[in-house]
């Protein structure tokens, strides 16, 4: 498997096919003997901004940090044992509700979208 090709920037979906986010980075853990294991998927605008790098990356990461409540909140992390399948998307073995909500979505939902009538109906 190729980390860059098969994991990074892929869409993550939960076991019902609902989108969870993109793989913005991958966490590697070093064993005592020096091998690096793939341990988790990392999500979030901060993580993406850090990976893109440069001025643009810092902008993206910066706005994300300003919007989240805690300034040193760790990035959203999905452990590799929750990954069921890696095909055109990365399918998890759990439902989306079990994972923490992305901060931007929550903020917009609470402050803007939920206040407009009809927000509870799909079309």
């Amino acid at each position, binding site marked *: 498997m190729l980390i860059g090709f098969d994991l990074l920037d892929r869409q993550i979906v939960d076991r019902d096919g609902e989108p969870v986010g993109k793989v913005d980075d991958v966490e590697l*853990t070093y*064993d005592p003997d020096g*091998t*690096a294991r*793939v341990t988790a998927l990392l999500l979030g605008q901060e993580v993406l901004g*850090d990976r893109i790098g440069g001025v643009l990356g810092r902008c993206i990461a910066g706005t994300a940090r300003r919007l989240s409540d805690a300034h040193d909140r760790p990035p959203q992390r999905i452990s590799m044992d929750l990954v069921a399948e890696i095909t055109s998307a990365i399918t998890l073995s759990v439902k989306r509700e079990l994972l923490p909500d992305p901060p931007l979505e929550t903020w917009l939902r609470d402050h803007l979208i939920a206040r407009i009538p009809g927000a509870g109906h799909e079309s």
Partner: protein
Amino acid sequence: MNPEPNTIRAGRILGRPVYDRDGRPLGNIADLITETAPDGTEHVASAYVVKRPWGRLLGYERDQATGPRLLQILARWILRRNTTVIPFSDLETN
């Protein structure tokens, strides 16, 4: 909260330049190849190092991508001239 001291993000490794023992540049790390260990986890086995400026490989380095013949031939020609595969344990971070 600080991250665990022995973890690193893949994004930090990808794109880094690689030099051989004599200090000559071999290119940048374009991707990391993993193998499945007996316990089911993936561990990093080797790195694709590609001479600049070719970064993203569009997937043509894999065997499965068929692609339109012209693009495939073009991509493979570029890659063959410019890619080396280096075992991960041979890389030292500095």
